[in-house]
């Protein structure tokens, strides 16, 4: 495991103690260069060794975009399966944190969703994080694991000491319901879960809450099965609305479930602006915006 400041434990303390435990040739700092970190990680993976590359903030993943999209994602395909970098996992802190502004708050999953050959995974909780991360590491395809940074401190949960896997490309219905399907990932799952409670209490509406977990390849069947049942879909993410991953979900669901829909699919997302600092409380798709959109959908 390697990247900027990984050796002393990492800026979010994710790698604390690992260097002492596993040695300096396995846990080490690299120079400050994201394209190098990912390229280097690909090379390790090409030899078959497991590589876990840390990008300090998802906001800084863009220098590595070429290595991820043009190289990692295409390694197996372009070589006719002679070579691959499946044992590469890229981990990176992701999402809003209250004060991160433009460059410490981004959710770039949509950029990578458009790239066949990689997997993109986002956990909502500590228990989910361990199982999903282990699955990414063991998966035979290069994976990007985005870690909601606001949850590093805020989330507390019982996590088993032994290893366990949570399958990739499987969404989880964390709460069943009959009137409307709510889909989100990462931090936003907690927001929509609260919205589900609000809807029950104030509107008597029963919500089915889905954590997508894997952005690509995404679990179309679970989402569609739910929308066929409820007839209504609301998708929410912090990332900007236009071209955000909600648009992919929306497009596919209307193709597959058109006649089941009782209302247009609703997307409650960040605005089409860079992520602001002082205006964060206004920017984020909070529970009030989600609740309001849900109410409109119910009354459509």
């Amino acid at each position, binding site marked *: 495991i390697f990247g900027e400041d990984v050796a002393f434990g990492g800026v979010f303390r994710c790698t604390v103690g690992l260097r002492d435990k596993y040695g300096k040739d396995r846990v080490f700092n690299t120079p400050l260069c994201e394209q*190098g970190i990912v390229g280097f990680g690909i090379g390790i993976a090409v030899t078959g060794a497991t590589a876990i590359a840390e990008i300090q903030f998802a906001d800084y993943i863009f220098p590595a975009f070429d290595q991820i999209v043009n190289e990692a994602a295409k390694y197996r395909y372009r070589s006719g399966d002679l070579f691959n970098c499946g044992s590469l996992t890229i981990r990176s802190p992701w999402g809003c944190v209250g004060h991160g502004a433009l460059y410490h708050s981004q959710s770039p999953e949509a950029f990578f969703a458009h790239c066949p050959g990689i997997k993109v995974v986002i956990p909502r909780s500590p228990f989910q994080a361990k199982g999903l991360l282990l699955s990414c590491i063991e998966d035979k395809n290069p994976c990007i694991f985005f870690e909601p940074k606001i949850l590093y401190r805020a989330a507390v949960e019982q996590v088993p000491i032994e290893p366990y896997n949570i399958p990739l490309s499987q969404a989880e219905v964390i709460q069943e319901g009959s009137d409307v399907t709510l889909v989100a990932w990462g931090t936003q799952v907690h927001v929509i879960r609260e919205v589900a409670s609000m809807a029950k209490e104030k509107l008597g509406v029963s919500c089915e809450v889905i954590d997508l977990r894997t952005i690509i390849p995404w679990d179309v069947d679970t989402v569609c099965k739910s929308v066929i049942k409820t007839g209504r879909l609301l998708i929410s993410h912090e990332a900007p609305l236009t071209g955000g991953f909600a648009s992919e979900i929306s497009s596919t669901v209307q193709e597959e479930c058109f006649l089941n829909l009782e209302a247009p699919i609703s997307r409650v997302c960040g605005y089409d602006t860079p992520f602001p600092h002082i205006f964060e409380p206004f920017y984020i798709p909070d529970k009030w915006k989600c609740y309001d959109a849900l109410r409109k959908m119910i009354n459509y």
Partner: protein
Amino acid sequence: MAVAIAAARAWGPSRGLGRAALLALRRPGARGLARSHPHRQQQQQFSSLDDKPQFPGASAEFIDKLEFIQPNVISGIPIYRVMDRQGQIINPSEDPHLPQEKVLKFYKSMTLLNTMDRILYESQRQGRISFYMTNYGEEGTHVGSAAALDNMDLVFGQYREAGVLMYRDYPLELFMAQCYGNVSDLGKGRQMPVHYGCKERHFVTISSPLATQIPQAVGAAYAAKRANANRVVICYFGEGAASEGDAHAGFNFAATLECPIIFFCRNNGYAISTPTSEQYRGDGIAARGPGYGIISIRVDGNDVFAVYNATKEARRRAVAENQPFLIEAMTYRIGHHSTSDDSSAYRSVDEVNYWDKQDHPISRLRHYLLSRGWWDDEQEKAWRKQSRKKVMEAFEQAERKLKPNPNLLFSDVYQEMPTQLRKQQESLARHLQTYGEHYPLDHFEK
């Protein structure tokens, strides 16, 4: 007395010691006392009575005169060569004394490559393959370096290193199969011609984006070091690709992470139409090495023995010392950049002819062989005929073969095919059932 003792305690034992003694106090790094790593100096004791720089970032002395360092590009790093342009050994102590069999293999690899290049370039002109890149003039860089490596050494290339594969006995049939994208292509027809790859011969599949292979090669070398594999990684790139950020990244990582890697730069004078004068202002690529802390050398790339000697020594030391080496092989791109290029648009025919006629790696080696009595005109004639025949046979076979099954469009995106992709595959199959007549299905395997 008490003051002196107190001072010694406060300032450390360096008080009162001379410079030489102070140097002895530094813990020796892996590369010796004089060049101890800046990091290790952080453990030194600080003494402001001894007016030496304490900065963690540089190991240097103070200077009180304002002096800028002038880059030296008029007389740059010298070019190592073993043979003169007539193939005669200049300094006998540098002669690698390779056996006849080996030198003949050099010659045959280079000439077979040249023959294959001519035929495949033509085949593109005739519309038989979509694209091709020749290696004219650079055969020496490929074969000299490949010959100096172990068979297991991992090769990351750019796109003009086919001679490395040729030297490793990659069959003509497979070169052609990749260019034709036929059923025999190990790459399953997915890439443009010349994007070769061979797992068996430890040659990582070529990709079009330039310089991306550089940090990857470094990672592979790091893994080889950890595995105690006794393996070096060699990474080829052109002087143009060396301008990419990935090159800078790769060099820096290799040095800081102490990787057994040979960076091999083919400086052939042009990046498509861009001459080196527009690619860089420093002393080529070799001069960048020391900036990263990398041991570097510049060689005559058209001298196969010089390339061989430099690569051999770099390999030995890279593995033994776990550090990177940079070899800049000066050469000339005699051919066009590719079949999509007509280089007469930006350079003179005279310039090209000079290199083709007066300083060609194949001719120089032929002169050497002739002067050793290891080759003659009759053998030359016979070999030209034989190699052409081999290439033509492989070519005709490649022409006749079908292309792979269109289902191979969909596999290997992931190790396992995702559900949604399988649906897309099924949708194409259904589409072809109705509209198949509009598609070149006859050329593809069923």
